[in-house]
C-alpha cells in the first residue's frame, strides 16, 4: 500500500466522519451513526492493521500493533467515536508528519535537484549531447551561457562568470579563465567555456557533497543516542506500567489508552529532526557539518587554532624579490621554476607563475624528484642536483649559509616575506622572496569570533618567525607558533587541548590534515576539489571564505538550542498526557490528537533552522582572557614575545 492509496483512504475516512458528525447534529438515527463510525474505523484502520500484521509476522513489535489492539478494545466496549477518531488521527498524524518532515529534509533533495543532467562533448571533432554520467575522463566538454557544468575539470579555452552556489554556497559568481578549476553542479551565468573533464560521475566534488550530507544526516548526536537508549528502556517500562494500571484499576480501556498515549513518537524524532534541518541549512550555504555529534562539539568550541597560509592569508603568494649570488637573477628564477614545475606546493607554484609572467621558457624537465615535507624539494635538473627550500633543508644537506646571505634573508623575512633558498649540492646560488597577503575578511572574522565566545586564538605556521609575527599580531592572535613541520602542527594542537578547552583547528586541509584530525573539531576551508581534506575534516567549508566560520559556529549553537527545545516539548507532552490519562481527563482520541500535535510542533520548530541566517554580534569591547597562554609556554616556537 503506497502513500497515495493511504491518503485516499484517509480522505474517505474523513468524509465518513463528517457524515457521522452530521448524523449526530441532526439527531437522525443512532443506528446510522454507529454504522458510519464503524465503517470509518475499518476504512481508516486498514493501513494500520496491515502494517501491524506485517510487523508481527516478522515477530517485531510496532506502534501500529498497539493502536490495533486499542481500536479492537474500543470496538468491543462500544466506544465507536473513539475507535473512529483514533484510526483517523493516526493516519492524519502520519500524513502531516510525512509532509513536514519532507520539508525539514528538503535541503538534500534540493541539492540533488541541482545535479547536471546532460553535457555537450566534442569527440572526434563532432559535437554530441550526452547524459552527464556518460562523460569520461579527458573528454572535451563545451558549456554555454545558462548551462550547468556537468563535470569537474580544467578550463582550456574561453571565459565565463560561473555561479558556484551549489558547491560553495556563495551567491556571487566567480570568474573563470584558462587553467581554472570548474565544478560540476555550478551554473554558467554568462560566457563560454571549453573544459577538459578530470572527475566524472560519482567522483565529482558535487557527488561527494551529496554523499557526505547523506551520511552526515545519519550521524547521531550524543543527545540522540541518549534518547534512543532512553526509548529502549522506556517502551518496555511503559508496557509494564500499563499492566500495573490494569492490575490496579481493572480497567482494560484505561490501560490500553495509557499504552498508546505513551508511545515515544515525538521523543524519538525530536533530536534528529533538528540535526537534519541544521545540517541542511549548512549544506545549502556551503558548510558541511558531519553529523549530530560534530554539531554538538562545534557549539561548545571556545578555542580555535588557525593555520596561517591559505586560511588567514590568501594562500596565493607572489614573488616579491629575487637575489642571485654569483649568478644572474633570471637564471635563479629559471632554475627554480624548472624544478618546481611538478610541485603542488604554493611557494613552488608562485615561482612557476612568476617565470610565466616574466616570459621565461622552461626547457629542462626535472628528474629524480624528491619532495621533503616541510623542507622543500630536491631534483636532478639537466644532470645537476638542485635543492630548493628553507634553512632546515640546507642544514640537513650540510650547505652553509654565509653571513651576507643570512642577513639578506632575515631582512626579507622581517618585511613579511618567506625566503626560499636555491642551492646546488654545495652552495647557495640565490634567494627568492615570496609574500602572501592577509585575506580581506580575516580581521573582521577574528574580531567577530571574540564576540562568539571564542576565548583563545592561536596561529600555527610552517613559515618563518618574522612573517608569522607580522601576520599574527596584525590579526590580534593570542599565541603564534612558527617554523612548524606538518607533524609538529598536530603535536602542537594536542598540547593546546585539555581541561575545559574545546578546540577547533581551521586549515586548508592539505598539509595540516594531521592537525585537523587531532583537534576536537577539525575544520577545512576552501577545499572544493581536495578529497583528503573533505574526508578528514569534521566540518568542511566549501567556499574559500572565512565568513562561513561564523555562520557555522552560530548555526551549531542554534541547532543545539533547537534540539533542547524539542526534547522539552516531547517529554513535557508525554508527562502531561500520562497524568491526564491516569486522572481520566484525557481519553484515547484526544490523547492521540495532542500527541500528534506535539510531534508536529517538534517538526515545525526544527523547520525554523532551515531559514537560519547568521547575525553580526560584533562588540568591540568583548572580554578577552588575554593573560593566560593556552598552549605550553615553554615551546621555543612561540614567537609572540620575540
Amino acid at each position: 500500500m503506497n502513500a497515495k492509496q493511504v491518503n485516499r483512504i484517509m480522505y474517505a475516512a474523513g468524509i465518513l466522519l463528517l457524515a457521522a458528525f452530521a448524523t449526530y447534529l441532526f439527531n437522525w438515527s443512532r443506528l446510522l451513526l454507529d454504522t458510519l463510525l464503524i465503517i470509518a474505523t475499518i476504512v481508516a484502520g486498514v493501513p494500520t492493521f496491515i502494517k501491524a500484521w506485517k510487523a508481527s509476522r516478522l515477530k517485531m513489535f510496532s506502534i501500529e500493533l498497539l493502536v490495533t489492539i486499542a481500536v479492537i478494545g474500543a470496538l468491543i466496549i462500544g466506544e465507536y467515536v473513539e475507535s473512529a477518531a483514533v484510526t483517523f488521527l493516526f493516519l492524519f498524524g502520519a500524513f502531516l508528519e510525512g509532509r513536514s518532515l519532507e520539508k525539514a529534509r528538503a535541503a538534500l533533495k534540493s541539492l540533488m535537484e541541482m545535479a547536471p543532467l546532460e553535457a555537450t562533448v566534442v569527440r572526434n571533432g563532432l559535437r554530441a549531447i550526452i547524459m552527464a554520467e556518460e562523460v569520461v575522463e579527458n573528454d572535451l566538454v563545451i558549456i554555454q551561457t545558462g548551462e550547468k557544468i556537468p563535470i569537474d575539470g580544467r578550463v582550456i579555452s574561453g571565459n565565463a562568470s560561473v555561479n558556484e552556489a551549489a558547491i560553495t554556497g556563495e551567491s556571487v559568481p566567480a570568474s573563470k579563465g584558462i587553467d581554472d578549476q570548474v565544478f560540476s553542479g555550478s551554473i554558467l551565468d554568462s560566457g563560454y567555456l571549453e573544459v577538459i573533464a578530470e572527475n566524472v560521475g560519482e567522483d565529482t566534488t558535487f557527488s561527494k557533497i551529496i554523499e557526505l550530507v547523506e551520511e552526515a544526516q545519519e550521524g547521531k548526536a550524543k543527545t540522540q543516542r541518549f534518547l534512543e537508549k532512553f526509548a529502549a528502556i522506556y517502551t518496555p517500562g511503559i508496557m509494564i506500567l500499563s499492566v500495573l494500571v490494569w492490575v490496579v484499576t481493572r480497567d482494560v480501556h484505561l490501560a490500553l489508552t495509557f499504552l498508546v498515549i505513551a508511545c515515544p513518537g515525538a521523543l524519538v524524532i525530536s533530536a534528529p529532526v533538528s540535526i537534519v534541518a541544521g545540517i541542511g541549512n549548512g549544506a545549502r550555504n556551503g558548510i558541511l557539518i558531519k553529523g549530530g555529534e560534530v554539531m554538538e562539539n562545534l557549539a561548545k568550541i571556545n578555542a580555535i587554532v588557525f593555520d596561517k597560509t591559505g586560511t588567514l592569508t590568501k594562500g596565493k603568494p607572489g614573488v616579491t624579490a629575487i637575489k642571485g649570488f654569483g649568478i644572474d637573477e633570471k637564471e635563479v628564477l629559471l632554475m627554480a621554476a624548472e624544478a618546481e614545475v611538478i610541485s603542488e606546493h604554493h611557494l613552488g607554484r608562485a615561482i612557476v607563475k612568476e617565470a610565466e609572467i616574466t616570459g621565461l621558457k622552461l626547457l629542462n624537465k626535472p628528474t629524480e624528484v624528491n619532495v621533503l615535507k616541510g623542507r622543500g624539494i630536491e631534483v636532478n635538473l639537466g644532470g645537476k642536483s638542485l635543492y630548493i627550500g628553507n634553512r632546515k633543508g640546507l642544514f640537513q644537506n650540510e650547505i652553509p649559509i654565509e653571513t651576507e646571505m643570512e642577513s639578506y634573508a632575515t631582512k626579507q623575512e622581517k618585511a613579511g616575506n618567506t625566503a626560499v633558498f636555491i642551492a646546488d649540492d654545495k652552495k647557495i646560488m640565490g634567494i627568492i622572496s615570496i609574500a602572501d597577503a592577509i585575506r580581506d575578511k580575516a580581521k573582521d572574522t577574528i574580531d567577530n569570533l571574540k564576540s562568539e565566545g571564542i576565548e583563545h586564538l592561536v596561529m600555527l605556521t610552517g613559515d618563518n618567525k618574522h612573517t608569522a609575527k607580522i601576520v599574527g599580531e596584525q590579526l590580534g592572535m593570542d599565541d603564534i607558533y612558527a617554523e612548524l613541520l606538518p607533524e609538529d602542527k598536530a603535536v602542537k594542537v594536542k598540547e593546546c587541548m585539555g581541561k575545559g578547552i574545546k578546540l577547533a583547528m581551521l586549515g586548508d586541509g592539505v598539509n595540516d590534515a594531521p592537525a585537523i584530525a587531532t583537534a576536537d573539531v577539525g575544520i577545512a576551508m576552501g577545499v572544493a576539489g581536495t578529497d583528503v581534506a573533505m574526508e578528514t575534516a569534521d566540518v568542511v567549508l566549501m567556499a574559500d571564505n572565512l565568513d562561513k566560520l561564523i555562520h557555522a559556529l552560530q548555526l551549531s549553537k542554534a541547532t543545539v538550542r533547537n534540539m533542547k527545545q524539542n526534547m522539552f516539548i516531547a517529554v513535557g507532552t508525554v508527562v502531561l498526557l500520562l497524568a491526564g490519562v491516569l486522572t481520566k481527563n484525557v481519553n484515547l482520541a484526544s490523547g492521540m490528537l495532542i500527541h500528534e500535535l506535539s510531534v508536529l510542533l517538534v517538526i515545525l520548530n526544527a523547520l525554523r533552522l532551515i531559514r537560519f541566517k547568521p547575525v553580526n554580534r560584533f562588540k568591540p569591547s568583548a572580554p578577552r582572557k588575554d593573560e593566560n597562554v593556552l598552549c605550553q609556554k615553554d615551546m621555543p616556537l612561540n614567537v609572540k614575545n620575540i
Partner: protein
Amino acid sequence: MKTLKNIKTTRYQLETLTCPSCITRIEGVLNKEPGVEKAKVLFNSSRVKVEYDEEKVSSNRLAELIEKVGYPILPS
C-alpha cells in the same frame, strides 16, 4: 576476502520514513537474507543502502523484501 565476491551497492528510495522503528524492521529483514553484506537505512533521506553479493541475491529480490515489510519503493 572481498575480491572473491562480486559486491554491488544499490540504493532504494522509499516514501518518507517517519518512524525510527522502521529502521530496525527493514535492516533486520535484509541482513537476514543470504548474500547481503550490509544493509543500512538512511532514515533522514528515506533511502536504503544495501551492499550485496550479486551471485547470491538479486536487486529485485531485495526490493521485494523491503516491500514485503510494508515499505513501497519509489522509482528513482
